[in-house]
């Protein structure tokens, strides 16, 4: 049986001879580079290229490149839009790598904020002392990597004022966080110094409720939701890439919005 894809009028075979060089070029460029790329290969053969180690490595390299592009796109003086307090969602949306019923509240009396790395005054902070710092307020949109969003009202000292207070080296590359729920996270220094990056202790004018990070969590207007660790217990300033919970599982690290 004739193939239904066979052209009705066959091309003159002489064309092949006259254009051998070009056809070879076409085969090389058009087919190898374009046609037989990984996406097409996956569909043609039905094999799962996404689990291939070298493909995964390539995608992560692209992600690292995109982190650099995002850092270049980040404008340290551009403020995210803010909203009236009447639009604040109460309570905020809970989201974590586990269910809200699994939240383990932090006891404020023995809570400590440990400091390490490129910081001159590494004495730990207790809650009483943290609450003496002047607070900034912001009503901003929380955007999740999944696609949903809500408007939340946060207040607390800016991370910048805190870092300056403890004598952190703000020329360092990263600020890393440890939390009571084993959710390590890290951000770039430029975002750490942004005016809408808070060590939030309050939501809608009230102390943070247990599921939302009491006594202190990070809230940034310029990054996706998963970059905002709750129940912070330690802050480190470092030049060594610290990674993070989702980042180690394949989410992008910079995650700027």
């Amino acid at each position, binding site marked *: 049986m004739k193939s*239904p*894809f*066979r*052209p*009705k*009028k066959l*091309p003159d075979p002489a*064309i092949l001879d006259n254009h051998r060089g*070009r056809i070879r*070029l*076409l085969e090389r*460029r*058009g*087919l190898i*580079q*374009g*046609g037989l*790329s990984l*996406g*097409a290969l*996956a*569909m043609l053969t039905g094999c*799962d290229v*996404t*689990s291939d180690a070298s493909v*995964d490595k*390539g*995608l*992560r390299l*692209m*992600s690292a490149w*995109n982190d650099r592009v*995002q850092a270049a*796109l*980040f*404008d340290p003086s*551009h403020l*995210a*839009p803010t909203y009236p307090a009447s639009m604040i969602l109460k309570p905020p949306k809970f989201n974590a790598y586990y269910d809200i019923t699994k939240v383990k509240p932090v006891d404020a009396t023995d809570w400590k904020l440990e400091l390490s790395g490129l910081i001159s005054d590494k004495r730990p902070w207790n809650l009483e002392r943290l609450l003496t710092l002047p607070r900034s307020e912001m009503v901003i*949109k929380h*955007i*999740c*990597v*999944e*696609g*949903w*969003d809500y408007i939340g009202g946060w207040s607390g000292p800016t991370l910048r004022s805190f870092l300056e207070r403890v004598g952190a080296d703000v020329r360092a590359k990263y600020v890393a966080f440890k939390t009571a729920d084993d959710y390590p996270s890290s951000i770039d220094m430029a975002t750490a110094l942004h005016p809408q990056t808070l060590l939030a202790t309050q939501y809608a004018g009230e102390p943070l409720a247990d599921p939302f990070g009491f006594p202190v969590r990070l809230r940034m*207007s*310029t990054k996706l939701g998963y970059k905002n660790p709750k129940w912070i217990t330690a802050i480190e300033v470092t030049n060594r890439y610290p990674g993070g919970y*989702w980042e180690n*599982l*394949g*989410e*992008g690290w910079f995650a*700027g*919005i």
Partner: protein
Amino acid sequence: MTKAKPRRLHPLPVRVMHWINAVAMIVMIMSGWGIYDDYVIIHGLHFSSNLRLGSWAAPSLLWHFAGMWVLALNGLAYLVYGVVTGRLRERMLPIHADALVQTVRETLHFKISHDDLTVYNAVQKLLYIVVILAGVSQVATGLLVWKPVQFSSVVALLGGFQAVRIEHFIGMCVIVGFLIVHVALSLLVPQTLWAMLSGGPRLQPREESP
């Protein structure tokens, strides 16, 4: 001195860019479906796992953010090439409203003639223009969904983050719709598929209008 041969319908750069675009589009669509499934726009509309590129949302995002470079740079090269050589104008313009109505009427009567590959009918021209604009729009709305704070004023102009997300989704629907028609027709008239591989017939030299 030898006289230059008449141009092909699809010169080599067009064919190379076409197939790179085909792969990039499929990567973007299938990885996009993986991202979409995490938080759907239309209740009840999910894409099954064998239609998605990436085993869960994070790898789908990695594919999407890698594929976007190929799509955008190849698309840019195509537009620059099309404008500089005059190809876009020659292939897609002009479109006359009466020709459009005529072609639609013929198509509805199953009179699909495509004897001369080098002439695009009015519906073809319109579809190509729409899909090129959809591609440009996808790059723009994609950038806005990626960076809604950095480009907050443009996002506000387009109705906010969720509105831009929906616009990005609609752009995908337009492109997928085009893709179905485009692939179906190229299989019905296989010479067109062959032309996009081999270059197709040689064009008559452009005649000077009297």
